[in-house]
């Protein structure tokens, strides 16, 4: 896989994490992927945004889901994977670290804003 610079920023409410992410992306000249990924996903797949939002950043149900050779019946897993595959490999992702890992992408830098 091509070497990537990925910065994952988690945050608490009021921590200005989003603003910081925007500034870092601008300073480092990296594309920023945030919640709008879902809008793009809904548009591209012709799906209802609300249906996708329900599963965004949600853990999969351990007893009701199964993984076979990288295929999962959990829509939460699929939503996470689709977001990361929507564009070229993401460079700057303002999404949860858990989602990055689930999509098989290991962020290089992890920050959590409090």
């Amino acid at each position: 896989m091509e070497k990537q610079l990925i910065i994952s920023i988690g945050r608490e409410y009021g921590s200005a994490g989003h603003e910081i992410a925007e500034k870092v992306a601008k300073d480092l000249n990296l594309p920023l992927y945030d919640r709008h990924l879902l809008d793009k996903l809904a548009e591209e797949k012709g799906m209802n945004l609300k249906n996708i939002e329900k599963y965004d950043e949600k853990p999969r149900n351990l007893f009701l889901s199964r993984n076979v050779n990288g295929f999962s019946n959990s829509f939460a897993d699929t939503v996470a994977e689709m977001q990361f595959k929507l564009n070229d490999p993401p460079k700057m992702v303002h999404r949860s670290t858990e989602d990055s890992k689930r999509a098989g992408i290991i962020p290089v830098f992890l920050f959590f804003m409090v």
Partner: protein
Amino acid sequence: MLVAQIFAVIIFVAMFTMIVLDKYEKQYVTLGCGLLTLIIVFGICMQSMSAILETLNIRSIFTLPFWYAGASAEESSSGINWSTIIFLAGMMIMVEGMAKAGFFRWLCMKLAKAVNYKPLPLFIVFMLMAAFLSMFIDSITVILFLAAVTVELAQLLKFNPIPMIISEVFCANLGGSATMCGDPPNIIIGTSLGYSFSDFVKNTGLIAVIALVLTIIYFFIVYHKQLNTTNGAAIDISSMPDPNEAITSKKDFAVSCVIFGLAVILLITHATTGLTVAFIGTFIAIITVIANHKDLKIIFSKVDYKTLLFFIGLFIVVGGLEQTGILEIIAGFIAKISGGNIKLMIAIVIWVSAIASAFIDNIPFAATMIPVIKSLAATQGVDLETIAWALSMGTDIGGSATPIGASANVVGTSVAAKSGHPISWAEYCKTAAPATILVVLISMIIIFIRYC
């Protein structure tokens, strides 16, 4: 022995729990638990080198009956079932060769063209194809290609692919029950109990064909309104993908067709020729490798080694239960509940297998149940074949009821979700669970009428 039994059960339960929780890759789980079985159960508790050797079962590979035997030759059911592993590996290599040549996509598109891309005939033809291909090829591969083509055609023809994918998955699982090599539980049952390809065709095959006709009628009644979307509007066939575009190389395509045909002939005739499934798997793998010697890297990189390792670990853990006599205790329990009533015993085996397989992986379940049914046959006078067909139908069909019951279901729902058509548990079970109950019921009735 009691301590060994306790540890064997603890390791088995831990393995099953970890498989269900899916936190670690399944092959690490079974191999780790297999190692613990060898060390703790056989080494420390039983201090039995013979139990270790019997479970590893490596010696069997170097015997003539492993490669060439009469169809009735029974292989050891204790420990690692190398026949199953070698056969699966061979078929995986063959399937990768076929996929590389574009065989599956070509077949799907060719059939779609043959029915003029009309959703309802397409729906029936794809169900039949899913069932037929799954008789010889693993259902994951069949659904991977079929669901992908279904999604593509659904976009072009503007129909909802979900009903079609659910029906295809169901028929793939049903088709797998018809033959010895269709579904992993059948390969394990066949090689462990010495049944041939034709034994399965004559018994579970007959049940599967009857069930398939009823299944197609059932899904047609349930889904025909949803699929009848074109309202008689003409379909522009020229805008559809050309089946021949799927073929990456005409030579590879022809060769892969010949190898597939040869595999089918060898499997159908293996009772007459005396060639074992291990031999057939190895032979097919060798000719695929020779035919694709330039692309070996691509083929071998796609072989599912994880599943093969998963099997090795699984057989060791089940061997722990067998060597410590736990499975005989379970068999005794089933015999006690049924009070010696053979019909009740068969009903318990088929329904417990079906319900368990709806929620847990049917492969470990089948592997565990084989020594149990052997013990039941030996002690209760029930015909081993009859109870083996009940186990086969229960494990193969039960997995169709839920989105996690069988590997094909997971792959089908995942392909649908990635195309923007998520299938919820409720949506899946609403049609698949009644169909599963229907088919298990039909299977039980046929077994009762024919064998009891």
